[in-house]
Each structure stands twice: as structure tokens, then as C-alpha cells.
């Protein structure tokens, strides 16, 4: 690891931490319906939206009504994205004259964007019209993120409220998340990205005459390059901020038009982690004890830092097979070095590894490098970050309410060990809460491992594998770890645009999203009904270094128990083979 590499990581994470408190406090005001400095501009639009939608924003919902509103809205979104893809050939804003997307692929993409996964089985520039990118994908980028944030607000209210039946109003939470948080941040980020060279135009693709002509693989002469452009910046900004991750182009944020400079790379990396990190402070503010939020953020940062160190080290390493060919892989001032297959020169190793750990930790799924070409242990880090259940930052909103499930388990186990009734923030944790937390945590490994197993024993599953040997197994495991945790990144050698992966993947994404959200909402409904138990000498404080360490241990133990055997068959075996030069 080079000094400059460490400095760049420090700048990124330091900048992030400076933004946590101001943004977190602002978001708390948004969810507690207090005045913000954006009110003079946005309050009239907010009320207009409620009027247009026939919504009464002060009407409170119990957890079941909240869940129904969320599900109905999300499933309508799936329908809209599906129909736009199927009909894009007959619709305007399609200068490249792209036809309808196949039904199974369109269904997968629809589920993918509505569930905040943004797994992409297609190359954007060759598949989707500008209209589909905007009306279907950019819209879902906003509302799927806002759905996660609304759920976070509702679940947090379950901890705050006493003897209450309701958790807030889904339409109000959705509208305020979009209007006050996501839109202003995206607008600022998008324009800044254009200044760096991200395109933002509705003009058709550009034809450029090549300086030196080239040939296709079949020997035809190529004298011109078609340069795909488009309204990219507006989509990249929200795909980073909303932990969406679906790129405008096939190469995602490795494409120079999505991420042209080291500065754009820094901003996009911070944007991945920004809202999930700041929501920890929002949570602390809403429960009236900011130490609780900082404690959760600290637990996230500890796990994040350890795995980041491993990833940077792994990707800086020399590929022993290349070394035999007299290839210079050292990291110097004039040379990024390391494992550069599938990486871009302008970013170098530290920035690339940082991005990868951030995007897999935060359930974003955008990439600035091709993960399939990572060293075995670099790829392992990306796998593990997802397999921990997307609770280390995680998706906007969903990461934090996923983390609540682990907090409940940590509090419960600690309570059992000392023989006290477990409590969290003054609420008694009883059988029902534990059942819901266990439901939320345990379904994920079942889906991921079950579908991976199905894929490796069927022809439909194995036919899509690209790389041979243990790495090929990692591709399948990666696909379902990503889909089953709503991440969206891929070992992209795997040909995922087949009926098997499209349908199995859509199932995994739906379960991952709603089988976490609904039990957590149910738990919040139960917690809201409880009275507040006064603190006593027997109460386990949940803001201390001891509890932070305990929470980290619970997350890592659950993750290791679930996935260590599968990891041994993929990246660990590959690492051992690489060590002996096979």
C-alpha cells in the first residue's frame, strides 16, 4: 500500500465523516416534519404533490397499511419499467432505434430497479432508449431509494413511539425523501460531474474518424468510432447517491463518460456512502441519543476498514504468473502497477479497491473496475461485504434497518448471557421481535446458497459460466450473493441474460428486498405499541465500545457461519492455486 494510496482513502473517508452530522441532522428534520432551509422553495411543491396524488399527508398508517402502500407502489413501478422496455421501439427519444427488450430480460430489469438492486443483464448503450433510461430507470433510482429511506423512518418511529399504533405515512415519507434529500443532492452532484466531463445531452451518438483505422475480429476495416453519449450525469448522480448502481453504459463507472477524472471518482465514492452513513446520525437524532447512531456507524466503519485493507493489499499484489513473463507490476510514482486487468489507469489501485469495498458494503453495485478480474482475495472481500447481509452501510435506509435486526440479536444474546430481559432504547425485546429479526437475517443465506447450488448442478446454470475452475464457481456465488442482497454488482463474465438467471435472479431480488422489509416493519409495529421501560442498573448500554465490539462480532460470526464453506470452494481455493502458480 503506498502513502498516496492511504492519503486518498483518508481524504475520502474523512470527507464522508465531516458530512455525516450536517446531512444527518437535516434528514432528521425531514422525517420529523420540522422546518428546513429548503422549505421556502419546496414546501409549496410538496403540498401540490399531495393534492395531485389525493393523499392526506397527516393521515397516520399502522404497519400493515404502511406495508401495503409500499408494496402496491413498488409493484406498479415494476409494471411501468417492464412496459416501457417492451414498448420503447414505438416510443420517442430513441435516436439509436433500439427495439423491445426480451420479456425475461425486461422483467429482470424491472424487478432489479424497483428493488434498488440495479443488477444489469444488458449493456445500456446497446439496449435501452433514452426514454427508457429516463422515465423507467432514473425514476426508479429515485423512488426505490426513497422507499428504503421511508421504511427506515417508519421503523425508527417504532423505536421512538410509545403505546402507539402507527408508524407514519408512506406517501409523505416517500415524497419528502425524494424532494428534500435525493433531488437537491443529485442536482448538485450531476452538474459537478458534467464539469469533469460526464456527458449530459439528448443528441444522438457521435461518429468520429479514427486516427488509425483498425479491424474487426472477422477482418473488416473500421475507420470510424461511434461514441455513445446521452443524458448520463443526471443518472450517474442518483445511481451513486441512492445506492442504486445501475450505469448508463455497460462499463458503468469505469466508462470515462460516467467517471472521467480522479475528482469525479472521489465524489462518486463519497456519494455511495453518504446517505447510508448520515442516516446513522439521523437515527441517533430521532431516538434522542446521538451516541446510539455513532455507535452503529463505528461498528460499520470497523468492519469496512478491515476488509478495505485486505482488498487494497490483494489488488496491489503481483500476479505470480505475469511475473514470469517479465511484466513490471510494482506500484511507483510513474506507474499504477498491481493487478491492472479490468482497471483504469487514471484511478490506480487504492481508489479502485476503495470503490469496490464501498460499493459492495453499501449495496450500491456500481463499479469502476471489472470485479471478475480481481485477485482471488480481492474478489473475496467483495463477496463477503455482500454476504454480511448488506448491513455495513448497506442500501439507503435498508442497510440501517437490516442492521437493526443484528442489533436486536446482539442485545438478545447479551441479555441471555447475563440473565436479564433484553431491551433496546427502552423497548423490551421479546419473542416476537426475535422471531422477526431471525426471519430477516436467516432467509438471505438460504436464498443465496440455495440458488447457487441450483445453478451449479443444472446445465442452465453452468452454461453461463465464463472463467474455468474455482473462479467459475465464484461467478455463480457472486451473482446470487449480489442478487440476494440487492447489491447489483457482478462478476460480469457470467452471462446472466438467460431465462434461468433472469427468473431466478428476479426471485432472489424480490425476496431480499421484501422479506427483510416486511418483518422489520412488523417488528416496528410491535415495538411502537410497547411502553418505555425505564433504564435500570441491569440495562445493557448500547453506545459503548464494548457493545460496538459485540455487534461487530455477531455480524462477523453469523456471516462466517453461513458462507465460509462456500467461500472455500471459490476464492480461497483459487488463491491457494495462484500461490503455487497454477
Amino acid at each position: 500500500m503506498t502513502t498516496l494510496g492511504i492519503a486518498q482513502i483518508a481524504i475520502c473517508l474523512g470527507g464522508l465523516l465531516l458530512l455525516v452530522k450536517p446531512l444527518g441532522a437535516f434528514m432528521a428534520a425531514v422525517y420529523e416534519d420540522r422546518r428546513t432551509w429548503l422549505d421556502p422553495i419546496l414546501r409549496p411543491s410538496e403540498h401540490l404533490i399531495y393534492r395531485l396524488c389525493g393523499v392526506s399527508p397527516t393521515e397516520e398508517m399502522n404497519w400493515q397499511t404502511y406495508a401495503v402502500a409500499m408494496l402496491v407502489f413498488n409493484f406498479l413501478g415494476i409494471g411501468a419499467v417492464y412496459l416501457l422496455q417492451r414498448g420503447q421501439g414505438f416510443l420517442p427519444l430513441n435516436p439509436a432505434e433500439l427495439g423491445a427488450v426480451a420479456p425475461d430480460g425486461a422483467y429482470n430489469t424491472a424487478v432489479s430497479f424497483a428493488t434498488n438492486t440495479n443488477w444489469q443483464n444488458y449493456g445500456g448503450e446497446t439496449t435501452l432508449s433514452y426514454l427508457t433510461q429516463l422515465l423507467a430507470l432514473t425514476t426508479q433510482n429515485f423512488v426505490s431509494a426513497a422507499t428504503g429511506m421511508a421504511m427506515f423512518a417508519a421503523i425508527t418511529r417504532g423505536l421512538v413511539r410509545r403505546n402507539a399504533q402507527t408508524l407514519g405515512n408512506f406517501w409523505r415519507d416517500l415524497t419528502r425523501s425524494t424532494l428534500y434529500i435525493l433531488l437537491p443532492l443529485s442536482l448538485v452532484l450531476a452538474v459537478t460531474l458534467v464539469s469533469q466531463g460526464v456527458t449530459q445531452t439528448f443528441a444522438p451518438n457521435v461518429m468520429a474518424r479514427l486516427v488509425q483505422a483498425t479491424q474487426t475480429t472477422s477482418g473488416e476495416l473500421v475507420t470510424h468510432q461511434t461514441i455513445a453519449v446521452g443524458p448520463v450525469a443526471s443518472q450517474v448522480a442518483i445511481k451513486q447517491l441512492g445506492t442504486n448502481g445501475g450505469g448508463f453504459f455497460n462499463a458503468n463507472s469505469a466508462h470515462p463518460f460516467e467517471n472521467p477524472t480522479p475528482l469525479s471518482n472521489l465524489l462518486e465514492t463519497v456519494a455511495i456512502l453518504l446517505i447510508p452513513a448520515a442516516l446513522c446520525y439521523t437515527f441517533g437524532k430521532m431516538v434522542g441519543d446521538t451516541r446510539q447512531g455513532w455507535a452503529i456507524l463505528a461498528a460499520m466503519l470497523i468492519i469496512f476498514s478491515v476488509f478495505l485493507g485486505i482488498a487494497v493489499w490483494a489488488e496491489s499484489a503481483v500476479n505470480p504468473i505475469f511475473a514470469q513473463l517479465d511484466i513490471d507490476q510494482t506500484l511507483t510514482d510513474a506507474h499504477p502497477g498491481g493487478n491492472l486487468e479490468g482497471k483504469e489507469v487514471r484511478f490506480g489501485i487504492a481508489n479502485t479497491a476503495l470503490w469496490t469495498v464501498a460499493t459492495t458494503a453499501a449495496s450500491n453495485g456500481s463499479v469502476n473496475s471489472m470485479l471478475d478480474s480481481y485477485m482471488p482475495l480481492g474478489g473475496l472481500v467483495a463477496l463477503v461485504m455482500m454476504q454480511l447481509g448488506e448491513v455495513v452501510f448497506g442500501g439507503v435506509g435498508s442497510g440501517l434497518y437490516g442492521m437493526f435486526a443484528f442489533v436486536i440479536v446482539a442485545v438478545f444474546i447479551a441479555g441471555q448471557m447475563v440473565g436479564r430481559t433484553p431491551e433496546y432504547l427502552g423497548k423490551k425485546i421479546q419473542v416476537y421481535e426475535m422471531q422477526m429479526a431471525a426471519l430477516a437475517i436467516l432467509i438471505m443465506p438460504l436464498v443465496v446458497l440455495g440458488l447457487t447450488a441450483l445453478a451449479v448442478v443444472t446445465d442452465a446454470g453452468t452454461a453461463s459460466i465464463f472463467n474455468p475452475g474455482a473462479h467459475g464457481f465464484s461467478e455463480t456465488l457472486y451473482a446470487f450473493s449480489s442478487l440476494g442482497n440487492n447489491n447489483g454488482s457482478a462478476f460480469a463474465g457470467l452471462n446472466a441474460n438467460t431465462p434461468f438467471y433472469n427468473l431466478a435472479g428476479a426471485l432472489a431480488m424480490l425476496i431480499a428486498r421484501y422479506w427483510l422489509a416486511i418483518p422489520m416493519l412488523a417488528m416496528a409495529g410491535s415495538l411502537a405499541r410497547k411502553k418505555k421501560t425505564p433504564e435500570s442498573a441491569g440495562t445493557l448500554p448500547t453506545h459503548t465500545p464494548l457493545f460496538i465490539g459485540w455487534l461487530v462480532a455477531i455480524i462477523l460470526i453469523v456471516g462466517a457461519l453461513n458462507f465460509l464453506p462456500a467461500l472455500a470452494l471459490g476464492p480461497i481455493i483459487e488463491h491457494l492455486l495462484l500461490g503455487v502458480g497454477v
Partner: protein
Amino acid sequence: MVAQLNSALRMLGVMTLIAGGLYPLAVTGIAQITFAAQAHGSLITAEGQIIGSTLIGQPFAAPKYFWGRPSATAPFPYNANASAGSNLGPTNPALIAQVQARAQALRAADPDNRAPIPVDLVTSSASGLDPHISVAAADYQAARVARERRLSVAHVHALIDQSTTSRTFGVLGEPRVNVLLLNLALDATQ
């Protein structure tokens, strides 16, 4: 349920209008006014014709040009309408064979050069469109290009320096050479 469905339909319509319509139009409007060149793709024109973008690499294979990163796009390298990486894993024999072939091509074009080859010259980029190579990779090719063009090595190094971008604020990213701009500068000197 029916009330929620009604609200959901209308909410989806309103959000589509705001997030899918007004927001990208607002960004486009601001971008076209403030950063028009970047918004259109940072294009390079010569004699009224577009000959590329400063951000998008082009394929070079002649010894008189600097070569960029290998590109895995199909069906030809640096296809800027189908960005892609190779996705080959680090132990894949196909990757080893490709790296070997690229190293051989570099050595065949410059048999006297016995230095180890910088890894960016033999590994394909993530996008297949990487416009940059490292300073070390440009230095490695300087003698070959100078010989092919009957230029002094010092002159070629001066052109490399002109096409080099250093780290942003002295910290961020890697020092890098824009291959297309360097080759255009070379063509302009003769």
C-alpha cells in the same frame, strides 16, 4: 387497498414527471449553459470533422504511434458504442495467453528494449476505452516511436510531458498520459 392503489398510481405518475422528466431536463439545461463542451462529450475536431474525444481512447497498432491499453470491446478494440472489460480471471489460461501475446508484440516492435513491460500495456482496461497509459508505459515506448519517426528521443519525451496529467491536487489519481492527444501531437510535428 383500493385507496392505496389509486394514490400509488398517481404518485408514480407524479414522480415519473419530476424524477424522470423535470430533473434530467434541469441538469441538461444547466449543463448546456455552464459546461457545454463537456456535456457533449469533450469532442476533438480537425478540419470541421470530429476525430475523437479527449476522454475516449482509440486503437493504435502502428509502431510510429504510442499504443494504449489493450481493449476487450467487441467486435473491434475501442468500440465506444459497446464498452466492456475482458472479465478474465487472474488464473484464466486465456488471460495468460493474451498477456504473453501482447508482450511479444511489444518486444517484436522494439527488439532492443530489454526493460520489463509496464503492466498497463499488457492488461485490458475495465471500460475498453481507457484513454490513458502510465508515464512508465509512455517512457517504455518513447525510443521506438522516436526511431520510427526519425525524431530525437528528447523531443518525444517533451511531447509526452505535454500530454501528461499529474495527480489532482497532487494527491488524487495517477499521473497519466493521454494516448490520443500524444499521437495527434506527434502527427502535427511532421
